[in-house]
């Protein structure tokens, strides 16, 4: 307590110098806190966008059914049997030529069922999605992607229009909204249409009763990982324990990849900021060495009246650490101000930039460490002085 007061007093005695000394630490702390907080803010907003768009979806692809094909009934049965599974829907794609009036273009057609929009997190802006009656009676209806509706037909309000897919007439019953699911926008760059699975069987020769690809969502309150486990077990059982016969993939992979990229970015930027903190620490050491030399006589007096090695060491070490902590506090305050400003500027981007708690903790811890590491040498130099040499220094 006493040492702390002495340290504050001696820093206060030379404010300008203290401020300049702290500058390195201040810049280092600001760089660390601001950069990492910005990366985290951007990351969390992107991850939110990803997870809101059907990341609880699992895609199963069967490459070898071992003479035991999956059909729509089995799929429905699994949905009811497996508690962890929420919804299932076939999802087989085919490339066809779509035609409206005299314009034609290539389409990716999804043969699926009524549950697909919920599983994949699709949103409609017009009309309705497929229903079970459409699937049961192989109705020739389709749901178009926003892009297909606006570019091929020319407007979004096209429910009731007829589109020809590979020569077969399909009635448009719905149009997806502009913000397509990230999954669909990644899979195909062109036009997309969703039609009943049974209708796709008629449209394409390669599509049969045997479903080779389907999507699954997790039941309310169940995790995707759990579903993946259950599903894999079920498929292994069905496909003679051959794990090459099928694959189960989830969007979690994307999330994982993303988080690993951003955490690497955090570490990289944090590392650069850490270097500037170390440079700041060297500045502290430099000034502490000057201070020790300037105060040689004071050290001599203190030793003469009974200060031990430890007491002098503590005094100068405390001073270095306090200097670092003051710099750290100023740096955190500045970071907070900068992030507040960034938040105002970026408010239109739906990104939230807030002071990242753990990073502040790391900054404080790192500053203490730097204060101790770079304060130790000067403090030890002071503590080791011989009282007579110190007393007679400079007259």
């Amino acid at each position: 307590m006493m040492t702390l007061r002495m340290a504050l007093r001696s820093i206060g005695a030379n404010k300008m110098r203290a401020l300049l000394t702290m500058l390195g630490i201040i810049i280092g702390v600001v760089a660390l806190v601001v950069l990492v907080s910005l990366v985290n803010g951007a990351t969390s907003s992107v991850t939110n966008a990803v997870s809101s768009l059907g990341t609880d979806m699992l895609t199963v692809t069967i490459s070898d059914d071992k003479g035991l094909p999956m059909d729509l009934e089995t799929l429905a049965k699994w949905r009811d049997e497996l508690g962890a599974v929420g919804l299932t829907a076939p999802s087989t794609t085919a490339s066809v030529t779509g035609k409206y009036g005299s314009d034609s273009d290539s389409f990716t057609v999804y043969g699926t069922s009524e549950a697909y929009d919920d599983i994949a997190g699709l949103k409609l802006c017009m009309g309705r999605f497929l229903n079970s009656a459409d699937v049961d009676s192989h109705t020739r209806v389709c749901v178009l992607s926003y892009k297909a509706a606006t570019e091929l037909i020319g407007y979004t309000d096209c429910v009731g229009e007829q589109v020809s897919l590979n020569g077969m007439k399909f009635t448009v019953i719905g149009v997806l909204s502009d913000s397509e699911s990230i999954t669909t926008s990644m899979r195909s760059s062109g036009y997309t249409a969703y039609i009943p699975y049974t209708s796709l069987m008629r449209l394409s020769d390669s599509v049969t009763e045997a479903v080779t690809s389907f999507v699954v969502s997790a039941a309310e309150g169940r995790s995707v990982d759990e579903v993946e486990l259950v599903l894999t077990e079920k498929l292994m059982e069905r496909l003679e324990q051959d794990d090459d016969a099928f694959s189960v993939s989830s969007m979690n992979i994307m999330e994982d990849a993303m988080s690993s990229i951003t955490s690497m970015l955090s570490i990289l930027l944090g590392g650069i900021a850490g270097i500037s903190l170390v440079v700041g620490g060297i500045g502290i050491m430099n000034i502490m060495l000057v201070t020790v030399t300037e105060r040689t006589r004071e050290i001599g007096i203190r030793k003469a009246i009974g200060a031990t090695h430890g007491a002098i060491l503590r005094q100068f070490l405390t001073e270095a650490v306090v200097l670092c902590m003051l710099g750290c506090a100023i740096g955190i305050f500045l970071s907070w101000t900068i992030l507040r400003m960034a938040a105002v500027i970026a408010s239109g981007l739906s990104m939230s930039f807030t002071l990242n708690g753990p990073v502040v903790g790391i900054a404080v811890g790192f500053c203490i460490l730097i204060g101790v590491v770079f304060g130790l040498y000067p403090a030890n130099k002071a503590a080791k002085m011989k009282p007579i040499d110190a007393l007679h220094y400079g007259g």
Partner: protein
Amino acid sequence: MIDIQDLCKFYTVGDERVRALDHATMHIYPHEFVSIIGPSGSGKSTLMNIIGCLDVADAGSYLLDGIPIEDYTDNELARIRNEKIGFVFQSFNLIAKMSAEENVELPLIYRGVGKAERQRRVAEALERVGLTKRAKHQPTELSGGQQQRVAIARALVTKPSLILADEPTGNLDSKTSAEIMGMFHALHEQGNTIVLITHDNDVARQARRIIHIRDGKLSEVSL
């Protein structure tokens, strides 16, 4: 009190080996007021450093209060200085950034005395040197005589066995010198042991006993 036997101390200046203390022997008894006088370069600073436990001798023995001062670590010497010796220097040696009060308090802090006790003893020491009113002033706001009185208060506050004064009047005019010397007399009267080191015969003569030092050798002149 102080028992010095055949003390030797050497310095190496360039290639030359200088003998600063040459088989010095002396005894100082409790409640004595002794002057050690010698010209500059006579080895009196060396002697004072050794008596004050700021330095240790190369040969010979030194007993302070019956304790042999040799083979101690720096920290143990610091503790002995804190408990047994009160220093008064020629150039006052107060810490500039601290008030008179805080300067006096410092040795007690290093001794680990509690706050209430510290305040009581600091107030008492300042009163003894008549500076109660100046307690909050910084050394730069005080005259030379006042600064030296603060230094004396700092020496007294630990109730040391020995007050060691090194040219305490060297930086003061004759009027203030007389005042400070009067204070040493008063302290002696109150039962303190005082060793005063000086080159000034007038100052030295005020003590009850004078020890001369020349070329590292001691000789006693009784009055």
